[in-house]
């Protein structure tokens, strides 16, 4: 799908419109995540943000990562959040004590960070256009194998160039698994 989209030159306009819509939704949802007074609602707003991030990956033609985003974040992480909320306390309606006393400080920090980051980004990258050239250079395999070549290229780099980080990640996951069980079990 993404391949078809990328091939057409008229891709830019609809893609930009899609991006704009998604960006508005995501930012609004992200703001709701950190301001809503209902914990479950926060988790559900988070779903909107994470889903939007996944769709952004699709726009960036990172199909495999997008699917992983859906599978891991929406299918597992948010569910875990909801689980955590419901196992501890899941009040219907609003709770008033979700924020601490440094709300103003938080706003200042957020705006400050945003200003610094935006300044740096605008100054460094200006109006650079996305060319996707790295994909086509890096994935010679992609064109040879066709439709799903990019997925294959990713797997080749995971199990080739990045094998050691991959193994380290797997060990980390195992450690986290054991750690979570040790922490959460009752005795």
């Amino acid at each position, binding site marked *: 799908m993404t391949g078809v989209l990328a091939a057409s030159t008229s891709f*830019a306009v609809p893609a*930009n419109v899609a*991006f704009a819509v998604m*960006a508005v939704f*995501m*930012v609004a949802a*992200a703001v709701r*995540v*950190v301001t809503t007074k209902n*914990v479950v609602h926060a988790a559900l707003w*988070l779903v909107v*943000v994470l889903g939007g*991030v996944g769709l*952004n*990956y699709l*726009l*960036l033609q*990172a199909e*495999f*990562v997008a699917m992983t*985003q859906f599978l*891991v*974040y929406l299918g*597992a*992480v948010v569910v875990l*959040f909801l*689980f*955590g909320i419901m196992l*501890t306390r899941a009040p219907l309606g609003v709770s008033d*004590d*979700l*924020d*601490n006393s440094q709300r103003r400080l*938080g706003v200042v*920090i*957020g705006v400050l*960070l*945003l200003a610094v980051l*935006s300044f740096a*980004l605008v100054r460094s*990258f*200006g*109006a650079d*256009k*996305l060319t996707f*050239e*790295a*994909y086509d250079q*890096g994935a010679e395999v992609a064109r040879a194998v066709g439709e799903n070549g990019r997925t294959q290229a*990713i797997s080749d780099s995971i199990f080739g160039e*990045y094998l050691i980080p*991959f193994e380290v*990640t797997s060990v*980390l*996951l195992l450690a*986290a*698994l054991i*750690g*979570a069980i040790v922490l*959460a079990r009752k005795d």
Partner: protein
Amino acid sequence: MLLNQFLLLSAVLFSIGVYGVVVRKNGVLVLMSIELILNAVNINLIAFSTFWGLGGQVFALFVIAVAAAEVGVGLAIVLLIYRNRRSVDIDTLDELKG
């Protein structure tokens, strides 16, 4: 599409996430804010990977895996706090021993 539109979106999400981490009292909500930050970083990685090769995507995958592990452990800790104190407010956790 511009590179910067993704990067700026990511910057906004990042800042909102930081706000959440600083302001939210509920442990689960803090973890959610951290997820916002991590996702902002991932958008960056993917956006840059269109320039500099698949390494960015691979590391985005690693970040997702590590984030999942982090949530698992983090929620286990929140659960433990809840079990001990009947509350998940982390600003009451200012003692050096439990």
